[in-house]
């Protein structure tokens, strides 16, 4: 449980940080809740860690132009309790509340979680359901990636070398929307064996928009598009939930086989839909 020797730097500005990250065997240190355990287990051994914690302004939460902007360094606790997030995209606040324990939520960050892309992390499900946009920058680029194009595989994202997650943009929820996040927590790690985030809009009693993000089931989080379509075509939630995970690869481990995970994704999609429907006005 002792990491290899490494250097540490704490840049004071974003430019300085991006300059450092442009070369060398360097890794960003955000909340350290994933990086430090990996270093202690010697699964990661960067020559240098670049701590983003001293750069002012990376953790802000603002609302403008119909979007909520959340800085990458916002902690899970901040996301969970931010009045802006709770009012404008409560699905994300609710999801944040399911992450780890209080200590982890006080340290871990939104940017760190999505950059790490643990297949069992909670946020990706919500970001997919919310159709989030992720702004990534490097010393010489600045681009925006849709959440649906961001999570490529287990621990693999669309980030290029030298790029960092700067902020996450989420559309402000309409008053007619309902949402829900249902999670099966692994009894040892607390991570999601399966997590399903749902967002729906109901008009005249009909679902006119449905977004379903699923995490934990497969090597990366995905959108259950077939189920979304069925719901938008007027299918009953049970029927739609029953196709969640169809055609998607499922993980298997000591705790839950692929079949069981897929089954859980469907059951919890149905349950999350029921919660969302009860909340949709």
């Amino acid at each position, binding site marked *: 449980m*002792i990491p*290899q*020797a490494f250097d540490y730097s704490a840049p004071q500005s974003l430019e300085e940080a991006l300059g450092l990250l442009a070369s060398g065997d360097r890794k960003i240190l955000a909340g350290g809740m994933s990086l430090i355990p990996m270093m202690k287990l010697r699964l990661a051994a960067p020559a240098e860690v670049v701590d983003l914690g001293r750069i002012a302004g990376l953790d802000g939460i603002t609302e403008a132009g119909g979007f909520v902007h959340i800085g990458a360094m916002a902690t899970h606790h901040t996301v969970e309790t931010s009045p802006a997030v709770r009012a404008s995209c409560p699905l994300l606040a609710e999801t944040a509340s399911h992450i780890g324990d209080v200590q982890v939520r006080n340290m871990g960050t939104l940017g760190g979680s999505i950059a790490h892309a643990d297949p069992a992390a909670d946020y990706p499900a919500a970001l997919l359901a919310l159709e989030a946009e992720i702004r990534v920058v490097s010393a010489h680029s600045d681009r925006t990636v849709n959440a649906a194009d961001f999570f490529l595989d287990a621990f693999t994202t669309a980030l290029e070398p030298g790029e960092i997650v700067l902020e996450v943009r989420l559309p402000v929820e309409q008053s007619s929307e309902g949402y829900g996040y249902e999670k099966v927590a692994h009894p*040892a790690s607390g*991570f999601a064996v399966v997590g399903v985030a749902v967002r729906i809009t109901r008009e005249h009693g009909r679902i006119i928009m449905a977004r379903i993000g699923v995490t934990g089931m497969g090597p990366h989080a995905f959108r259950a598009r077939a189920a979304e379509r069925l719901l938008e075509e007027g299918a009953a939630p049970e029927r739609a939930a029953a196709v969640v995970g169809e055609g998607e690869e499922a993980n298997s481990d000591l*705790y839950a086989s692929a079949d*069981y995970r897929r089954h859980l994704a469907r059951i919890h999609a149905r349950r999350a839909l029921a919660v969302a429907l009860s909340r949709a006005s």
Partner: protein
Amino acid sequence: MATTISKPETLFGKRIRRQEDPRLITGTAVYLDDIKMPGMHHACIVRSPHAAAKIRAIDTAAAAGRPGVVAVFTAKDTGHLGAVPCAASLPGLRVPRHDLLARDRVYYVGHPVAVVVATDRYLARDAAEMVEVDYEPLPAVADPEKALAEGAPAVHPEWPGNVAFTFHQEGGNIEQAFSEAEVVVKQRITSQRLIPTALETRGVVADWRPGENSVTLFSSTQIPHLMRTLVAGILGMPENRLRVVTPEVGGGFGSKLNVYAEEALMAFISMRIQKPVKWVESRRENFTCTIHGRGHVDYFELAARRDGVMLGLKLKLIQDLGAYHQLLTPAIPTLSVLMMPGLYKFQNVSADIVGVFTNCVPTDAYRGAGRPEATHGIERMVDILAAELAMDPVEIRLKNFVGNDEFPYTTPTGLSYDSGNYAAPLRKALEQVDYPALRREQAQAREEGRLMGIGVSTYGEICAIGPSPSMPAGGWESATVKIEPTGKVTVLTGASPHGQGEETTFAQVVADELGVPMDDVLVVHGDTSVVQYGIGTFGSRGTAVGGAALFYALQDLKAKVKKFGAMLLDAPAVILSGGSCVDERTGKSVSFAEVAAAAYHAKRLPPATEPGLVSTHFWEPPNFTFPFGAHVVVSEVDRETGDIRIRRYVAVDDCGKIINPLLVDGQVHGGVAQGLGQALWEQAVYDENGQLITGELTDYALPKAHLMPWIESSHTETPSPVNPLGVKGVGEAGTIGCSPAVVNSVVDALSPLGVRHLDMPLTPEKIWKAIQGGQA
């Protein structure tokens, strides 16, 4: 001299907060890793990544050349030392030599191969990676039943077949019982491997003092004195030149009832480098290298009459031993056999143990040590029989209990149960849950398609371990009581409490016996240079054996105090009351402090009496004690996901007389938590190649606060006649009573689907599959 006599308040039975807690919860207690010494070096152990391999060569040059590294040791350096000891003996037991460091072969993942010593622990860890070991991997076997199969790889090449021992015990007439039986139920029941996971991992600091020609060994252990004797033996040094000090111990649960290679290695290294050296186990090492618990595959057959009267029990017990015997490894399953009849009065048993080597870390005592396995077995079998006969599981138990008038009761396994009232805790628990109403609710739930279960376990256990003839190194315990010249009282106990709370309960006993305030009493333990020889804390013996020793030491001392009191009061005799010696004729008294001063100043002495007020007592228990109890679990299973929700957990334990109900509740709660861990979550799993795949806390699911049900704990009190305090022991009761109650409850919930048995842990997927199977 005063003349007021205050009526003493007895503290026995009072809910008093633990004396030891303030230092523990304010972070001012000193644990092993808090120990720092000038010039202290740090050791890191190079361990085998293979479950079985030949060692072709070890190259330590690169590691030795790293900055800060002062030495690298391999078996070449330590080969002359003794082996890691096994104290248990059984006829025909095969005992592989357990070298401190592997010689030419490794036998499990984590097997120590070399030790790197450096000026700090970071440098030691980095250098350890540079030790090059050339391994030739060999086929391994990690499953005890596979290890017994034809053609299995031999864990120890000299013993193909992997059988370390077989052991047979029987009582009564098992053949007749089975031939007279109207019904026989059979079941294979496993008790999976568990990782004890003390919050504080193991650790050792060794400090060689050349001027004194002695080594001080600080170790996080449950058995300082036994460790001193055994480590001195490994090192070939005189025992009195080795001092073992036990700082605060952050949990043991049996995993520190042992002597491991590291204790002897650190003492050896300190002598070689002439500096203090520290080794603290990492969590990964704790999982792979410290003993595991359980590891049973049990085949039970229970014979009965159709009216539910049980006649006899057969058991074939396969014990996964791991690659070596640790201190008590082969003895643990024999405890299961002793307890296999549980609380029931059938007189015919037969048991066959096969102890099997596997390429895994050794198993040994873990909270309950053999008794949870036995209790789980008999309590599951009783339920299976009840289901077979369509009888109520409560009724069948009441029908078979040993009766209140039958104590002392001799079991077919040769034990003598001291005292009991087995129906009492069961009745109390059932009243608490309103059993008939629960059954009605269950019938209703079943009609609605809900899966609700009610599970009962009525456990017995064997505590106060134990009379010396049943123990390899003695089963007595010792106590010294010293009344200091100012009247303060110091107790030295040979038991080595590490969380059980004897600093509090022993102070209560002293306060009651001597009439002094509890705050005047200091209980000292865990330093072999300060405390007379003792056996230690395990097997729920600390209070039941150590407390009895204390009681008798106090009686001797009281007699002497009275002599001095009588002398000071010029009375023929005095009584002890309210912290004073009182002359009952005149009402005159002298305080304790006055008596103590007189005994030490010794200006005058009573006839034939020496100065000082110190008494030591070694107490040999005439028997074990046998606590018992009933746990009732109400559960509900989510039909769709297989999730289990424990709606109620009621524990009624009878541990004899209760000195401090607060501490007893604490023991029950902790014990139940670990029982729930086994029932629902925990399992140490090795893959086919002997790699531990539950090697981290992210995979190995310990019970956590937010997963715990509310535990409704209460008691009945049936005193033990074995010791003068009437106590029985409660350290392991919660664990022993728990797992069958949980599994019985969940199987009861699933019984409408035809489910008859499920092995632990009851993971949701396992339940879900059982539901799928049942519905198909």
